[in-house]
């Protein structure tokens, strides 16, 4: 107990990219306005809102190129609209039979596109970060 404790660096932390988050918020706002006008389908819009919120919170402020984040955001929204349209077309064809199936399973179906797209985007950012770190190491 003789000497005072030494302090070592805390585990790796990121510095949030506020600019990226601000630009992302702007894009999401415009996107949601446009989609709301075109689609007028509350359930579909709701799923897209969840996806966009997750993306804004946990992807845009991370390290990584802005273009990559925007591409994945747009890709996610396209995917969400496609999933929603497929679900709607099932609803039109199967009518009442589909109503209850849709009611119980729609959120799970949403899960099937929201999480994979988000995790793929994250994986891509992680890969970019690794590459960048490697190139910095090589330079040293």
């Amino acid at each position, binding site marked *: *107990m*003789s*000497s005072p*404790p*030494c*302090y*070592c*660096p*805390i*585990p*790796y*932390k*990121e*510095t*949030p990219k506020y600019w990226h988050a601000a630009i992302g918020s702007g894009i999401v706002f415009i996107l949601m306005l446009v989609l709301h006008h075109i689609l007028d389908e509350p359930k579909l819009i*709701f799923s897209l809102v*969840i996806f966009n919120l*997750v993306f804004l*919170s*946990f992807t845009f*402020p*991370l390290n990584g190129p802005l273009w990559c984040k925007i591409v994945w955001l747009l890709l996610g929204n396209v995917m969400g609209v496609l999933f929603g349209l497929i679900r709607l077309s099932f609803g039109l064809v199967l009518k009442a039979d589909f109503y209850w199936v849709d*009611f*119980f399973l*729609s*959120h*799970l179906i*949403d*899960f*099937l596109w*929201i*999480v*994979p797209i*988000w*995790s*793929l985007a*994250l*994986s*891509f*950012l*992680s*890969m970019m*970060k*690794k590459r960048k*770190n490697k190139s910095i190491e090589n330079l040293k």
Partner: protein
Amino acid sequence: MIWILNLIIALLIAVMSAYLVRHYIFTLTALYYRSGQPHFFPNRNYQPIVSVLIPARNEEKVIGRILQRAIELTYPKEKIEIIVIDDASTDQTSEIAERFAKEHKQIRVIHRKVGEGGKGKSVVLNEGLKHANGEIIFCFDADYYPQRDIIEKLTAYFIDPKVGAVQGRVTVLNEPNTLVTRLVALERIGGYRVDQLARDDLRLMPQFGGTVGGFRRSLLEFLGGWDPNMLAEDTDLTFRVYLAGYKIRYINEAECYEEAVETWQSYKDQRYRWARGHMQAALKHLWPLVKSQNLKLREKIDGFLLLNIYFMPLLVVLAWVLGALSFSIQVSDLAKFYSFLPSIFLFSAVGNFAPFFEIGIGAYLDERERTCRLIPILLIAFFFNVLICAKAFFDLCISKFTGNDRYKWAKTPHNGNGNNFINTNEGRE
């Protein structure tokens, strides 16, 4: 009647919101928060005598690996004792441990008689504690494989007299083996790299995980050691440490590899024990936690949420079903609103008690690009855990009702497959 239904749903949504906010804060903390508690370097001037307890029951396939590692530890040999407590093994565990003990004087083996064996980890650890001479008592499971300097890293934190226990990080060794090991690896990333770290940073209640951790001997003796009546002896001890006025530190840089369960059956048995034990601990500690004078409000809130976490998969499904029921019997806007909300929490709750974004960010922080892509499979684990938690809950209720709280300890089998993954990062990118 409908308003009662709506009220129940509203309450469930409030509880789930609390967990969602909690994990949201944890994830942001693990990502960005830099003003957490200080992390200490190993300090050569503070190296007390330590005892490492290794409980082992039929662990012939893995015991050699941890003992080999134990003799490679960089902590001064004269200040460390390794105690293997052979819990009446019927395989070669005892012989392998004895062979190591003969060659290395810091290793000792304690044998429990055949009639005494198989009564659970707590009993075995208490036996080890009786024979230990160290000032700090560490415990490692037999299937674990620690870093060489892990003891220094963990011991450094005991220089703070308020620290009663420490917990290191657990990483899966045999991750590439099966879908189950990959799932467990994801859960470990979320649980340690994000959850435990954030709780430490925010001065909440990091948890002792039952292994890869240690206690101040004086505190352990004051608390009466491990409680043999508790299935989740680690959670129980965690709360007893906090209620006694001490704190537990989580040390992310002190890493140890574990051999995770490889089959769904083993996964079920292990999680069932954890779920039932955790629920048992919740019943035991909730009231003392609320009353405690030693804990701050934020610690009490975190402790409360931690104790009840194994009820969450049940509550999420219950809210989902009730939301649907509410929607089917009334067509008001409020009902529609209710039917939507549980889905948000379903999104967030998938995975083993850590939302998908928490696990994803953990994998990102570890630069695990391929692991990130596996996050969607957490949905499987979620539904599996719903069934496990439901069974644990009903079994616990029945046992409390009948007064028969007996549980046959289901030991987690280890086949030594982890040996193939030592010193390689293959499959863990």
